[in-house]
């Protein structure tokens, strides 16, 4: 249903301890943000992509994911490149300009460069996020949060939400199919009212389900730890080695 979740459980790196994967990908992510350097970001992008492919995530799917945030990035980059000015055009290297009365609208080389840099940094960071989410089952992240002493109540809410996301998505899909079969969603008007019915039903069903699950919890000994176990951590020299090499490489790229 949610493909990312399925890949997270079934990839070649799913057995690597989450600590290694989280620290590695977050390190690369933060370093590329800190560096704001094209070379660094590009290298980060290459490393993450290679690892994602090594984890046996289909390349077609990975590319699909990479295209996903493109709308936002484009909507975010255009305003960065297009400038307005009331006076004469400042600076140099103008690529394009029009004037509307007193108002100048222009695109110059420095803002294009800035936009391109931001694009690279963003794509590099996004690939780090994908490396993390495509190889790490959510439960493993919860174990890690538990170890890091994040509020247990908070972790439990996340765990319950995670468990029932899928149930509710299924219910929503069933209702949606049933409504479509009965000619809902054929116009804006019926679409909106049908969605209203669906949302209301879904909300009520979540509450009924919560009441039932409360009975289940009571039947099984009351509210205890939802996440009880954790995964033993043993240092992997291979992982540490890879980490050190990447660290060295990025620092070198950044300083020279």
């Amino acid at each position: 249903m949610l493909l990312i979740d399925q890949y997270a459980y079934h990839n070649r790196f799913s057995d690597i301890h989450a600590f290694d994967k989280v620290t590695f990908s977050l390190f690369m992510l933060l370093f590329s943000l800190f560096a704001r350097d094209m070379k660094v970001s590009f290298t980060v992008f290459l490393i993450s992509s290679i690892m994602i492919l090594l984890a046996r995530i289909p390349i077609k799917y990975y590319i699909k994911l990479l295209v996903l945030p493109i709308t936002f990035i484009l909507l975010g980059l255009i305003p960065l490149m297009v400038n307005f000015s009331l006076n004469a055009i400042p600076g140099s290297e103008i690529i394009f300009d029009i004037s509307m009365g007193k108002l100048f609208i222009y695109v110059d080389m420095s803002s294009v460069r800035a936009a391109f840099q931001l694009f690279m940094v963003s794509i590099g960071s996004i690939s780090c996020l994908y490396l993390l989410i495509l190889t790490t089952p959510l439960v493993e992240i919860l174990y890690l949060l538990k170890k890091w002493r994040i509020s247990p109540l908070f972790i439990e809410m996340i765990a319950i939400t995670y468990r029932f996301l899928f149930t509710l998505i299924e219910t929503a899909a069933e209702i949606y199919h049933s409504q479509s079969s009965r000619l809902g969603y054929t116009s804006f008007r019926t679409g909106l009212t049908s969605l209203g019915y669906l949302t209301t039903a879904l909300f009520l069903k979540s509450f009924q389900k919560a009441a039932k699950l409360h009975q289940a919890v009571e039947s099984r000994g009351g509210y205890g730890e939802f996440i009880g176990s954790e995964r033993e951590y043993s240092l992997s020299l291979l992982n540490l080695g890879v980490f050190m090499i990447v660290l060295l490489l990025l620092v070198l790229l950044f300083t020279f």
Partner: protein
Amino acid sequence: MTTPIITTNNLIYRYGDGTEALKGISLTLNQGKKIAILGNNGAGKSTFFLHLNGILKPLSGSITFKGERIQYTKKYLQALRQKVGIIFQNPDELLFSPTVFEDISYGPRNLGLTKDAIERLVHWAMKETGTLELQKKATHSLSIGQKKRVSIACVLSMDPELLILDEPTAGLDSYYAKKIINLLNQINRDGKTIVLSTHDINFAFEWADEIIILHDGKVLGNGGREEIFLQKDLFQKANLERPMILDLYQFLIDNDYFPTQKQIPRTKEDLLKLLSISTSRILKNGQ
């Protein structure tokens, strides 16, 4: 005389996660018949149903409704869905309106009919399903048996030609199940084709004219009731039980209690009648 209402030709469907749910389904559903689809959980029954009114679009293959190939345009699908009604399995999840009347009138309202026409259809559907006196009730206050009947009314109210039901008797006790079966027979007598899926082999054996056996996304068997049920290996392959009545009947024939019948008995009562006749025959011979 059989005219097909729906024909599917080598339907293949794959879900987003890569599982191939339909692996080439070619079938003909005949007009006016009572058709039962058998198969284990995961055989592809529900996925197949969702193709019949165009909710799902096959990866390859085609579907023909009354001789015309289904097109996936908004307009065509709208007309198709009025004629092909699907009743999903879980009425608990599927009734989404606050009151019974609102739910039953949802479909007709979407058809863009006049208020009068809507009311006529809704009234007819409620009368047919015996839900008239429920119409003002809150949907969540209904019993499971009532919910099932209401969900049939919801689809019937669009006056479809073909009714598809996913496990219509699941979760019902035999009393309510019988009521649903009677209702389906009545709808069928009104001239509507009925296709349903069920885990209850005995019910399928008693009720259906035609049987389709799905297994692992493929058609294992498809044909008249007797023709299919007499093939023991089919049932073994599909991991399905055989109807109890049929097993007993065959045992009795094999042991010469009575000769092979033109009409295989469908129910316990049929079988007992046959036995009564043969008993008196044996007794006479004995005298």
